[in-house]
């Protein structure tokens, strides 16, 4: 960093007193040349370090894969990841997880639920769709509200 500043000062001075610069041009050029190559070396070292730190292999199971420029973390479902080995399939343990495990895993796996990052309005629509079109047994109003709250808290855009 210090070198960069010195280099900048030298260059500015050069520009400010042009006649001087002409007389000293050979000397100055040699100096900036060696500073340049030092800078170049530092840059190369940094690129090498950056490359060494870069994993270079893709974990395709990782939805937040930093190596995939298609994926920005903000656009991926961020509730939690489906886990077949967990007693509640990896559902975040906030109020309502038992109800969701009870009512939402009978027809399909919870993987389809936990992938979502939809708006709260869309969750409301989806619950109605599940009830009216997909034969989901009705929930009592309290449970309905709890399930909806759970889904919008954990699997909505903007949550977390």
């Amino acid at each position, binding site marked *: 960093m210090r070198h960069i500043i010195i280099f900048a000062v030298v260059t500015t001075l050069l520009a400010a007193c042009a006649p001087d610069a002409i007389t000293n041009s050979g000397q100055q050029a040699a100096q900036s040349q060696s500073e340049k190559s030092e800078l170049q070396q530092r840059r190369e070292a940094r690129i090498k370090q950056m490359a060494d730190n870069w994993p270079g292999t893709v974990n395709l199971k990782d939805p937040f894969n930093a190596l995939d420029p298609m994926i920005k973390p903000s656009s991926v479902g961020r509730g939690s990841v489906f886990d077949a080995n967990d007693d509640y399939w990896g559902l975040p343990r906030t109020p309502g997880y038992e109800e969701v495990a009870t009512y939402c895993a009978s027809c*399909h796996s919870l993987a389809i639920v936990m992938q979502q990052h939809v708006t709260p309005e869309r969750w409301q629509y989806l619950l109605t769709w599940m009830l009216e079109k997909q034969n989901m047994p009705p929930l009592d109003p309290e449970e309905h509200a709890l399930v909806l709250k759970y889904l919008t808290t954990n699997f909505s855009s903007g949550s977390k």
Partner: protein
Amino acid sequence: MKKSKNSKLGVSRRHLLLAGASTVACLSGMMPAGFSSVFAGEPETGLDSEALMALKDGLTLLNARPVNMETPAHLLDDAITPAHRLFVRNNGHLPDYDEHPEASWTLTIDGEVTTPLNLSIADLKRDFEVVRKQIWIECGGNGRKFYEPGASGNQWSLGAIGCPIWTGVRLKDVLERAGVKDNAVYTAHHSIDTHLSGDPDKAPISRGVPIAKALDENCLIVFEMNGAPLPVLNGFPLRLIVPGWPGSCSQKWLKRIQIRDRIHDGTKMTGAAYRMPAYPVSPGTEVPKEDMVIIHELPVKSLITSPVTGARAPVGEPIEVRGHAWSGEGDVVALEVSVDFGASWQKATLDAPANKYAWQQWRADLTFEKAGYYEVWARATDRTGKRQPSVVPGWNPKGYLNNMQHRVAVFAV
């Protein structure tokens, strides 16, 4: 309800035979890492479904019940997609093949026709010209994952696309044999997969297309993929291929094509399914049903299948970048790549399609003169002059038609 182990099998052991001789090898050796844990304790997912899924080598599992799997872009490198690399989009449970064996499988053509038909697979092969075509098939929701706010459904990223060779007969020839009446408007496709709720009166999916599209000579009723019987997960023993349109039009496990005098209103024809807003909407808008219109052609698109994102390239030496390009409108006429975030573009070599609706291979040699981090972007242009956008295109409630340029990360060292 804590989950319970329930071994009700989705598919009987016998059906494994349908999948071919490599099944045993797949069970023992080819099971992708992580698969067994994905299924541990999942109710109603038996070993056989697992085995069928294990045949899909290296695919990403989005959901095991119902089965939905996509192919990572770099595993789609083959010009002709092999069976083990073709994505799976299922809406319900697999058909009961004990009740519907291939030998007595029939396809019914009825509705607004003069002569309803009931055809066995042998009838199809004997009475109609058998054709082979390479045709891409893509889920309308491919790319859904990148919409923000999220759009509901399986969060497909890039790999709900593939392009195998199909063998079958022209839908047109069969419909002409049945005699489509003048009042015919739409087809209605029916199959025998079962609804997730177990309700026998509910179809998991039943879509259709306008008669004009059904009479396109490229629409096929197929019984083979890449010269082998269709994979169970991809519709064994009979399915439709409706090129250029959302994959859902290409009904799997096809049992009946009904000709209707109105737009079909089966499962996933109405509401928001496979529909786009009639006008551009701001992200997150709840769009009323009457403003949602049925999707026809899928937009122009391309994939970079090599290098894989995350690869390293040598500085100063050319590397080959390659992939495929396709468009629901027909041929792709240009493919360009950029390594400077779209500031400049370089033309790639683009092959002609094997036939209409086959995807096209492209390749370009790229040299990274300086070490550092790069993104390779690809963009296709189709014969109508339409190009892929650099950003996720118009938000829509179900996240369809995302044809954003594919990008892969490459480090030059």
